[in-house]
């Protein structure tokens, strides 16, 4: 029930905000129509209501800028130059990207607007538009503006890395598109994370300075990388040194064979034939015993196992070679990384 009432409250509040914006929009639209019909004074009356601090309805920044612009244009038409200049400056201060369409406004209005730009100094950067950028072939583009000629420095700063990428450093007048190749100053690919685009300007006309910041995030879109082979475990390697117990084991095996031969020659034959063939078994048993004793004695002196060492080296080399191949393939995949740029919250003055 509480959730339902909270939901209803939110819906009502949202509809009130939308309604307020619609009120402003309707009045703004009405004022523009009056302006087009050259009912300038009536239009000015409506527009002043909108920009008035006592205007009771919600008004967006865009609506405010539009109202100021039409106020300036209207006042310019009726020859109130100072007030027109003031409203044009108000529009420019609120949005430095504001400009007049030469096909819709008179040369006098355009001239006055240009004067307002010269008297007002502001820099701005457009919010970043989401994009996928392949650094090998494509560029990300940021749009900045200065209201009149100014020395401008545009920098890109990874928030978590103390590095600045200077995208532009020079004189600018008006709007400019600044490209970025997705690389850091040292040529490496920009890391994934949050970035700040900072625009700092110093007016060349009125000695004022201004700055603006926008934020965006960069993520890497890379084909899945292969895992390198892990270190060889002891279970995957052969013993490189012979253990003393191995010699004892071989001695035991030799004796088992020798005893086995004697047992077979004693147990398996038919007793009727006696033990006449035991000499054959003794021959084999003797050979097995000698083999066991020899292995035992050799194991006491020869500790290293060259064949196993060589085999282990071969396995290590095979692993290193496989990992080198994997690293090469991964590097090729990393080179195909695409930067995914998305706008982020936070704007600066």
């Amino acid at each position, binding site marked *: 029930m509480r959730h339902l009432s909270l939901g209803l409250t939110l819906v009502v509040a949202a509809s009130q905000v939308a309604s307020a914006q619609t009120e402003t929009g309707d009045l703004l639209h009405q004022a523009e129509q009056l302006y087009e019909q050259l009912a300038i004074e009536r239009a000015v009356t409506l527009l002043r209501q909108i920009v008035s601090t006592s205007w009771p309805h919600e008004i967006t920044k865009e609506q405010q800028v539009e109202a100021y612009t039409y106020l300036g244009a209207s006042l310019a038409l009726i020859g109130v130059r100072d007030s027109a200049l003031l409203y044009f400056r108000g529009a420019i201060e609120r949005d430095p990207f504001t400009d007049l369409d030469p096909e819709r406004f008179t040369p006098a209005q355009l001239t006055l607007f240009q004067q307002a730009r010269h008297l007002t100094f502001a820099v701005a950067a457009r919010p970043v538009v989401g994009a996928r950028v392949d650094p090998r072939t494509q560029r990300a583009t940021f749009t900045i503006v200065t209201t009149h000629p100014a020395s401008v420095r545009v920098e890109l700063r990874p928030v978590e890395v103390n590095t600045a990428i200077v995208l532009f450093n020079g004189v600018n007048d008006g709007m400019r598109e600044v490209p970025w190749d997705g690389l850091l100053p040292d040529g490496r690919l920009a890391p994934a994370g949050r970035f700040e685009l900072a625009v700092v300007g110093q007016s060349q006309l009125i000695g004022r300075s201004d700055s603006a910041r926008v934020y965006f995030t960069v993520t890497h879109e890379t084909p899945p990388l292969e895992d390198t082979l892990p270190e060889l475990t002891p279970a995957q390697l052969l013993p490189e040194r012979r253990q003393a117990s191995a010699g004892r084991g071989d001695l035991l*095996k030799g004796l088992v064979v020798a005893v086995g031969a004697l047992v*077979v020659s004693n147990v398996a034959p038919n007793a009727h034939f006696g033990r006449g063939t035991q000499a*054959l078994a003794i*021959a084999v048993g003797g050979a097995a015993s000698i083999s066991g004793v020899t292995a035992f004695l050799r194991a006491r002196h020869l500790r290293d196992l060259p064949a196993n060492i060589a085999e282990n080296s071969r396995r290590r080399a095979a692993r290193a070679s496989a990992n080198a191949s994997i690293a090469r393939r991964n590097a090729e995949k990393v080179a195909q990384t695409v930067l995914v740029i998305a706008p982020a919250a936070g704007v600066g003055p």
Partner: protein
Amino acid sequence: MTRRDRTPVEWVVLVCLAFAPAAGTAQVTASGTAAVTLVEHQVDIGYGVEESRGLLFGAEGAVDLGSRLALTIRAAGGSLSGEATGVEDRNVGEAGLQLSVALAHWLAFQGAVTSRTYTTAIARQRWTSVAIGAETGLDFATSPVRGVLRGSLLPVVSVSGLPRPDVALTTAVGIEYRGGSVTGALYYGLERYDFPNVGAGRRLEQVSTLTVRFTVQRGARRPPRSSQ
């Protein structure tokens, strides 16, 4: 051995020798073996033990069918002679086929079919047997040596002119030395046949052997399995 008897043995030897290289070139583990066997044959049909000795020369070809199966075909031939009066010289010809299934690197089950012929100047006796048994191998850790213990029962033994034996078994113990692709081996083997008493006395036969073998292996390294 008469000319007529030698022919099939020679054929089997030729097949064995031809088989190993052919398999080797196809990158299949294959081996060829030459063997010399000292044979002591003892027979007692109720009138005392009759002994004869001789050398048998044999050849084998083996091929691995996958990682666990091995097929071996072999043949041997030679002659036996006795020192005692009245013991006739005999030619021996033998051919066999063996299938081995490795359960572990140290244990394999084996099944074999063997046909053997004893020929004297006046008679010929044919032995046909089926053996089922197991072989265990003891690989030395410090040197390329392997001890082998093997035992088989012969549930099927057919001997021309004789009843089926009550007891029929074979067993062998040996030691193998490997050097590169060549393996040398020394085996002691014993075959025992106790025939039932059919009124004319009980027939007992026993074959004891000492075999020297040399095996050449091609393909992946795997301890050769002898059929001796």
